[in-house]
């Protein structure tokens, strides 16, 4: 498996290749705009280490690192 959203460094950007899995989490991520070609940005980690703050399609989202690992980057 390639690099994922969780592997980015703070303030680093990437492009979505795919979202792993076929369950309600992967569907919700897709609905929120995590589709192939979308730009994502890792903003920062929460003070206690998890979740992380990410940017996608002009808005920001909190996701746990475990979920961010589902977002595979190009």
């Amino acid at each position, binding site marked *: 498996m390639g690099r994922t959203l969780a592997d980015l460094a703070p303030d680093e950007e990437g492009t979505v290749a795919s979202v792993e899995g076929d369950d309600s989490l992967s569907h919700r991520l897709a609905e929120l705009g995590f589709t192939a070609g979308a730009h994502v940005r890792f903003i920062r980690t929460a003070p206690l280490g998890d*979740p992380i703050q990410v940017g996608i399609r002009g808005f*920001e989202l*909190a996701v*746990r690192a475990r979920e961010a690992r589902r977002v595979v980057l190009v």
Partner: protein
Amino acid sequence: MVTATTDPAPQFAGATQDLILGGPENPFVVAVLGNPNTGKTTLFNALTGLKQRTGNYAGVTVDSAIGSFVNGEHNFMLVDLPGSYSLTPRAPDEVVAVRALIGSGATARPHVVLCLVDATNLDRNLFMLTQVLEAGLPVVVALTMVDVAKREGISIDYRTLSKRLGAPVIPIHASKRQGITQLKEAIDTASSSGSVPSQSVGLPDQIAAEVDVLQSLLENGTAETKSLRTRFLAHRILMDRDGYLSNALGDAVPAKARAAAAEARQRLSSAGHAIPGAEIDRRYAWIADLVNVTVDRAGAARFVWTRRIDAIVTHKFWGVLLFLISMGVVFQAIFTWAGPFMDLIDTLVGAVGSGVGSVLPGGAFRSLIVDGVIGGTGAVLVFVPQIAILFALITLMEDSGYMARAAFLMDRVMAGFGLSGRSFIPLLSSFACAVPGIMSARSIEDRRDRLTTIVIAPLMSCSARLPVYVLFIAAFIPNRTVAGVLGLQGVTLFAMYLVGIVVAPLVAWVLKKTRLKGPDVPFLMELPPYKIPSWRVVLFRVYDRSWAFVRRAGTVILATAIVIWALSYYPTQPEVQARYDMARAATQDEVEIDRLDRAEAAEKLRGSFLGRAGITIEPLVKPLGWDWRIGMATIASFPAREVVIAALGTIYSLGDGQDESSPELRATMQAATWPDGRPIFTPAVAISVMVFFALCSQCAATLATMRRETGSWAAPVFTFVYMTTLAYIAALLVYQIGSRLPAIT
């Protein structure tokens, strides 16, 4: 002309009826929906002003704000549906919008859908709009946050956008009330014409063919043929891979249709159209084209302020410090800012009570009005300022965007006992009142997380527990300092709040390890841009919740107070009366008469229904260090815990109408003794009572809300049993251990 009618359901769209559609008796119904954080509440307020109420909209068992406005000759009823990201629901609050658009049984479909689209966040907002356009209903698009978008360098070609969507697009600046007139006009036109959007994303042929099949299956044996409604329903059912929507709609989706949808998904998946992935990709591709021709993002500088603020608010050190300070401010505010207002209400209630008491003739009726009605409800109205302040602060945190950051910060902590940051908001709200706290758990997608949150929410010390703490601490905890700086009374109060804060995670942890065991739930939460909170939104919420509380005081609590009064007043004991009358006649001493009055009241109380019951249950509460009077006051306050103040007042032979700051009740309790002369209340007993109240489930409204929100009695019954058991055991331990420690007895 409008003619008289007996039609009980006048809002049915298209039904023949005597009432003119759009007339005052039969308004056009407008469903208002959009993504969360699009300024929906602000726009709703701008459209309807104060002409709104919280209510249940036709069959939807969720409180939606319902408002109205008039445009020219037409009347409109607006229904505010919960914010949602898509019409493929996965949480109870997301079902509400879809159910309203589909309509079923007694639920009328709206005449128009007003869909909000945030101009600063077009892609994701347009995603749900493309689904809404397919509902087969007239749609009006309100483009919100256009001012912010402009500032951020985003320019939008509204005309082209409107043409491509096949629906009117009205730019809005709700807080400055710009665009509201045009929006009302557009809603009016759409309602009158009834024309549905002319454009749609369109489905790949194979998916469209499956929707056709499913639609005819749904229409089989009904009056509908090729209706836009069933087409929309068929489409949504096909996309509903987890069956969440079908289950929520129940009979509206026959088992045959569910099975057919599952088979169709199989076929589509093997043909390379994974459901719902294929549809989602199609929509975003369509949106990309649309945005390409209508939006210019050249030079866009996004979230400048939000990023700067977040750098501090979610900072490893400053963020945590700020979080602790804000929680501190919330609690400080409830305890201190409310004080003067509470005193004021208190004085007013007292004045009304003695005013009314002086004009009424003595006897049962005066006692009922003064002690039962005025005293009972007055003791409760005193908490309105605390409720108002708490709701104001919580709404400020929500509306500014801070609440989402607090949840972001707390997620790791919540994960430690099996929940997520999503549960933080309902739990924090529960410090004000568990009822809105439990209701706000609707946004939690996972059923187990949601149930766990609902079941532990009442452990948070709500504002109704505060007066109990205040009364007992002021009376029985010495006012001295510990560790040099901290007041012992303040520390005790804080400790009472800690009881719930410590026990709730333990209960959650146990539940998530046992009955509600399941895979870890994902945590996904939008962090909306910060904004200056709208004072209208805050004031309306404060007004709405405070008024709800006052209404409750006027119904449930009033009824309980009257029952307690009756049980402690009856049966009348003329022989006791006669005996004391004789004793009183034999003396001139005022003090002695006063003593006789009190002794008489105490004796009558022991002989009352309440007293007899109390003496029966005394063995049960004695191990907690309580006498029968505390026991009865506690039992009386099971419907609503704040009743205990009024109950103690009555029971401690003072007459009703005591409140927690009344020195008289405090003094009587301090002086109360067991038959052998030992004082009843020691610090150990006081703490035992407080711990009991901290943990016990004493709120009928909370249990009823749980029943409504979870759809079964299992959660409220479980909550009642576990909380009451925990409360008893904890109070027992506190007293048994506490009374053996020489320091606090």
